[in-house]
């Protein structure tokens, strides 16, 4: 299935680690097939590490205005939810 729907979030102006929190929470609730796109003030170093740890695909690029855009294709959010505390 090719994901086509895009869910956009503007997370600029939020104190760390709020942007990371919102993106990772969205990973657990966004339906499969949707692409999550988030705009951030700076390159989200800790979020990228966490996505790497989870084996999640993503792309991250800097825009002309200096902000960063991270794109995450959601494959199966239920996989992310399966872990226990």
């Amino acid at each position, binding site marked *: 299935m090719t994901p086509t729907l895009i869910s956009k979030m503007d997370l600029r*102006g*939020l*104190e*760390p*680690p709020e942007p*990371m*929190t919102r993106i*990772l*929470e*969205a*990973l*657990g*609730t966004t339906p499969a097939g949707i692409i999550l796109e988030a705009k951030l*003030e*700076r*390159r989200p*170093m*800790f979020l*990228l*590490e*966490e*996505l*790497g*740890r*989870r*084996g*999640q*695909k*993503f*792309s*991250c690029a800097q825009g002309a205005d200096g902000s960063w855009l991270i*794109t995450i*294709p959601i494959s199966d*959010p239920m996989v*992310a*939810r*399966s*872990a*226990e*505390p």
Partner: protein
Amino acid sequence: MSKSSPAPSQLWIALPFFIFGFLHLAGALAWLVIDPTLLTGAFYRPAVIAFSHVVGLGFLMSLVAGSSYQLLPVAFENPLFNRALAKIHLGLHFAGVPTMVYGFIHWQMSVVAVGGTAVLIGFGLYIVNVAATALRPLRRSATTLGVLASLVALSVALGVAIWILASKLGFVSARDPLALLGAHTYLILFGFFLLFLASVSYTLLPMFLLVPLPSARRALGSVQYLTLGFGLFIPGQLAMPQLLPFAAVFAILGLGLYVIEASAVIRHSPRRLDGALRLYAANLGFLLPVSLGLFIRALQLAGHVPVFACHLDTLVFSLAVFGTLGCAILGMGAKIVPFLVWQHRYAPLLGRVLVPKLADLVRVRLLNALAWTVPTATLALALGVTMESDFIVRLGALLFCASVVAFQINLFHALTHLWRSAAKPLPTAATRTC
């Protein structure tokens, strides 16, 4: 579309540096309570040199290293160059610093040399790691350029330290050991620590206060003036004392621009300062007396002003170390340590279970109180040094010590989350409809 390789948490690199640093601070203050002559007596003696290394290496350098490995990748927007190097640095620092301090207390230069070699190799790895992180690729900013310049100052200060040690061991001759000691101390304090502080503030303050840097040009100017100041200071201290007033003027211009820029960030911020940031911001208040003391000292060394106060060096160092750097580093620690714990414990669970907010790991009232007690304790120390009063220094050290213990209780509260999770299962569909 990329898929980055799984990276281990930063916790086990940064946190040990923080714990090591806070324990050294508490130890140094307890030592000061027992022996206040460390600040009021003559400074060129084994106990004072050991004490200054407990503070400089054990406290300040440990916390700067811990913060660097955690924060600089964020500031540079590049991943840390090499975690293994950071871990080796940690081991060498842990082994080297207590060995050096033991050697200084007992004035055994061969022991100092052994500990110093370990610390020196550790610093070498730190410099390579931080510089390589900044340079891949280099994103020009006041923070990046300032941190790189501070690494140069650190390298030169370490070179001077090797020279001092080699002369003590009889390998080389030193014409003026006190001038070398002064060069080493001022380079570490102003060239490295204060330049590093100003540079990282240009990323940290806007990040936490949610406001862009009001003037990137002014921030860069402060870094350039500070760099010029320590650049002139090296030949001034070692051979041409007439350069020292110019070095002091450039350093003061740099510090002045830093105060203006940091104050502008605070003024433009839409949010109120929390306890940690208030403690961090208190560092700015100490820079005026530090600058004044630095300028008078430079005039004295250049022979323009008679030496009227033998404790001026100690006064400048007390204000700079406990006031400026102490407030900034404790404030930064109050932000970083809870975040390290939260990131390690709860970030992997985000989106899978309900996790506590970062603010839940911090005791706000305690931090608000520290924003008052730490600067007050520093003022008492400075007053005690000025009046050469052991009683007032002891009082200041006691208040500072109590503040640090309270600070450590706060950190312990955050650390308990490492073994006692406060995460809860996500509400099920049935719970949500209820």
